[in-house]
């Protein structure tokens, strides 16, 4: 695993600024540490040697100033880390949201739940990454060499000890990691399953009660948790070894340095001030590296989060070329235009094919919906009705030709109004929901759309998040009204409705059928995916996708 994703630095200006500010703060911190150790060593050695208060006072002041400077630098670190995290998160969030709009029907490999997870708690992992891990990493990179150099100047032998021991730490940790990595991974996998044991029992509690199995679960919880403990401890015994290595190397070098300084002081090869200076500095050399080790978890989460984000950005870009309606030769376009001018407006699909990975979801569909006509698309659930609509909308890539009024659509949605299978309403009034995207349309359009869709609820009634507060049928009718409103407001050519009557009773379904005829009668094409007989009956043409596939 890389400690820092180079893509993050390359792509995010906020991340670059954070690293620069952090580097500067690390310099301040290193300088404060040196000043503190220098003042302390000089003071102690001098006072033992008989220094008087007047000489000691400026050093004492320096001690306090250095301690304060270090504290203030630590405070600034916190600020820089947090605003760095905020900026990078905002930048990534904006990029991800924009990228998602290119693939409204979903990014392959990124189901909605994963996207929501990534945009929320996923990006929040960057807080720990920028707040805890990166500062220590920068501090290690900037301050450690300075402190070692200062030690070297004060006492080359101690400097040598540090230079030898310090690189051993990552080497040992890597060795431990390599030796145990495979075992650890296997262990963690079985641990994840064990740790879900309790969640399963709690989640399935009512089911367990129905079958009279709840009481006996207590013993099982104890057993599973105890096995979880035993296995985790096996893993931890090894995991903690790397912590032990760090601690051990740090305290051993302090001991080595102290003993060697002591012996050379006895011999008179070194001054007390230099010796104390090195002694105070030695643990500080190891501190940032120890903290990097401690913040390892935060780093793993942060790196995963940013890698996920970039993976998704790449995924949207890979398939992000304009989902076109396939190759249409110039000659064909001319023919189309002539056809269009001849009044044969409407939707025309020629041999449309949609692949999802290896699978062909929509296979060679031909469909013609002239202006003024209602076309019903039928077929078993899963036969690709919704995918066909997504292809017309340009939400998924499709092969073949998709033309509206003779022109290849090429993802142009301006003349299309669509209502999907689930109503997908928003918090706000019903009127606001219906006028989505066309807020400035004249109010009589609103009333007409509501009437055509059969909405009999007060349009000023406000809905909760996700449109809560309406029954399924009402929500479905509001969603249909929204599509009709867009169609009217933009004088669109094509109305696409996906299962608009699945939650309606027969009477309302018949009303909807009459409305669709009225809309079509004004010279628009209406395509409705349905499995209900009543809607099939009002259609001029019925396209059975299952047959179309065969």
């Amino acid at each position, binding site marked *: 695993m890389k400690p820092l994703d180079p893509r993050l630095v390359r792509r995010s200006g906020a991340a670059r600024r954070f690293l620069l500010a952090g580097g500067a703060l690390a310099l301040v911190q290193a300088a404060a540490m040196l000043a503190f150790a220098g003042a302390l060593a000089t003071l102690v050695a001098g006072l033992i040697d008989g220094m008087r208060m007047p000489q000691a006072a400026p050093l004492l002041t320096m001690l306090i100033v250095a301690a304060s400077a270090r*504290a203030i630098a630590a405070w600034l670190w916190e600020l820089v880390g*947090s605003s760095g995290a905020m900026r990078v998160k905002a930048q990534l969030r904006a990029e991800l949201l924009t990228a998602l709009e290119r693939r409204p029907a979903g990014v392959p490999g990124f189901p909605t739940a994963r996207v929501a997870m990534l945009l929320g708690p996923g990006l929040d992992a960057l807080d720990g990454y920028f707040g805890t891990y990166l500062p220590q990493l920068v501090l290690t990179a900037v301050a450690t060499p300075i402190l070692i150099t200062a030690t070297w100047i004060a006492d080359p032998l101690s400097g040598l000890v540090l230079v030898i021991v310090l690189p051993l730490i990552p080497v040992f940790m890597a060795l431990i990691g390599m030796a145990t990595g495979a075992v650890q991974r296997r262990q963690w996998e079985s641990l994840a399953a064990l740790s879900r044991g*309790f*969640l399963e029992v709690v989640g399935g509690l009512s089911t367990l*009660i129905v079958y009279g199995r709840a009481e006996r679960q207590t013993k099982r919880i104890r057993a599973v948790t105890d096995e979880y403990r035993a296995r*985790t*401890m096996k893993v931890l015994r090894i995991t903690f070894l790397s912590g032990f290595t760090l601690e*051990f190397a740090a305290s051993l070098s302090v001991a080595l340095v102290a003993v060697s300084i002591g012996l050379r002081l006895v011999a008179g090869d070194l001054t007390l001030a230099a010796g104390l200076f090195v002694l105070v500095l030695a643990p500080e050399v190891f501190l940032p590296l120890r903290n990097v080790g401690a913040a390892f978890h935060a780093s793993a989460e942060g790196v995963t989060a940013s890698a996920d984000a970039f993976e998704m950005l790449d995924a949207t870009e890979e398939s992000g070329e304009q989902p076109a309606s396939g190759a249409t030769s110039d000659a064909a376009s001319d023919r189309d235009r002539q056809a269009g001018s001849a009044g044969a407006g409407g939707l025309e699909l020629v041999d449309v094919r949609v692949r999802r990975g290896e699978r062909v979801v929509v296979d060679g569909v031909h469909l013609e919906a002239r202006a003024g006509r209602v076309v019903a698309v039928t077929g078993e659930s899963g036969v690709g009705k919704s995918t066909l609509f997504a292809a017309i909308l340009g939400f998924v890539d499709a092969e073949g030709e998709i033309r509206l009024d003779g022109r290849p659509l090429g993802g142009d949605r301006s003349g299309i109004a669509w209502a999907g299978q689930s109503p997908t309403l928003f918090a706000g009034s019903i009127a606001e929901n219906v006028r989505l995207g066309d807020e400035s349309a004249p109010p009589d359009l609103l009333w007409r759309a509501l009437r055509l869709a059969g909405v009999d609820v007060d349009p000023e009634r406000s809905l909760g998040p996700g449109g809560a507060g309406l029954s399924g049928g009402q929500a479905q009718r509001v969603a249909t009204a929204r599509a009709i409103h867009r169609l009217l407001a933009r004088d669109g050519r094509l109305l696409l409705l996906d299962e608009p009557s699945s939650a309606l009773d027969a009477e309302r379904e018949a009303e909807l059928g009459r409305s669709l005829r009225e809309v079509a009668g004004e010279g628009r094409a209406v395509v409705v995916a349905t499995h209900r007989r009543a809607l099939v009956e009002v259609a001029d043409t019925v396209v059975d996708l299952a047959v179309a596939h065969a």
Partner: protein
Amino acid sequence: MPESTRAVLRSAIPSLRRLLPSVIFGIASAGSSVALLAASAWLIARAAEQPPVLYLSLGIVGVRAFALGRAVFRYLERLTGHDASFRQLAVIRAGVFERMIPVAPDGLASSRRGDLLDRFVGDVDELQNVPLRVVQPIVSAVVVLTLAVAAVSLLAPASAAALLTCLVLGIGATLLVQRWAATRAERTLAPLRGELQAATVEHVQALDVLVAYDAAAAGRRRIEAIGSRLARATRSRAAAAGAASAAMTAVGGFAVAASLASAIPLLESGRIDGPTFAVLCLVPLAIAEAAAAIPLASSAWRLARSSAERVAHAVPAEVPAELPTSPPDPASPPAANLPPAIALRDLTAAWPASGQGRDGSTVGRPVAGADPRPPALAGLDLDLAPGERVLVRGESGAGKTTLAHVLVRFLDYRGSYRIDGIEASELEPAAVRRLIGLVEQRPWLFDEDVRQNLLFARDAATDDELLEVLDRVGLGEWVAERGGLDAKVGERGALVSGGQAQRISLARAMLARFPVLVLDEPTANVDPARADALLRDLTDAAARDGATVVLISHTPVDEAVVDRVVTLDAGRDVSRGPLPIAEPVR
């Protein structure tokens, strides 16, 4: 802190015997750390006086021993501490679970909705941090600090006093700032974070609609606006949190200066020698490092405490009045081989205030605290003849699910509910549940194979019996395609569709051979185009054993599959009145 939270927290603390090893190792490790610096300072200052090397050997041995001790004891502290806290986790989980059983499922605030469930389980598991990150570090740090300050006071009381003052002021200031920042975070950050997450989820889930209506950019700007409000709040909290960590950083330096300044007169008057003076000057650094554990433990304490509060809130300590309890002298239940006759008279039932809606929402449910709450069932009369198939329909909030939960005794009732003439409240709730089974709206599938998900309904069933019952619910082909009974259903049934989950769950209920079976909204999470077929299959399969079937459904049902239709409205049977439009509900 309410008593219930305190009880939860108490359950998280292991016995002294379990806790002691990690505390002792913690003291040894932090103590070694202080002693290492003291010994090193003494060694160097003493060496500068150029005595014979022999005089230094004790110091040299001490430095090496403490260096080794610090690392080894720390490793042991972590191992024993984690072991103790994991051992306690078994106790915590079992204890919470035992508290849950009498109030489950309808008295529990944590519903099945994934995020709430995850949070509840996370909260229970968070409690193991009480011994590991709170009790043990605080005890170890306080002991080491006391010993260290006491040792310093033997050498120079003035230094000890200065050191103590710095520590108390520094830790006190840190804790105060921390507390202020945490309160602020709870008040402003958490709601903003929730708002941002909700807006993001809504945006992502509705993205196809937003794009199709050219409204995505507006939605994105709204999210960005919430994001920058959150960023501002976070920055001001980071300023406070930074101040706390800065205070702890400064404590070490100031303590050194204070201890040093206090010891100067002693040195000048010759009451202490040079090496002792060096120890007094340097040792505060190590002491401050040990003290840093206290603010960390205090943050951990805050997290654990709010987890304990949520656990205590989610699992009420007392059984609410709306839930059934075992009768003191239970009657003997009717035989389970034939469907009993069921008679409900003037039946009233309500949900407890502590519970949440069946899907985590409160739609159709009385709002907690708004007393008097309207009962969800108000004076219902209903007869179920043996072997009858009855469809119960009605608007959201009409009391359909309440009826199902009363029938299986998840909820208590007033009025009369007789099973073959025996009042249900005189029977053990578990005995009622052997007669009347429920297929829930969201059946829970365990993350095992199909076989395990069926077997717990009847341990002794053979594979042939399992396959036969799967065939009857229309899953015969499916299970063959998936490679038989060993097919995994995935975490929370992730590998099966909503309809398949319902069918598996019905197969399970049929294996248990309930004489009466209640199907609660079996098509709630099923593709509308498949709902009709599913309902027909479920009702047919369930009724084939001659069992009584109560089908609760919001989608229009082909009435040929049932014998009778009951329409509920506001907790009453209105079938005989004017029929309201059978409005499908979400």
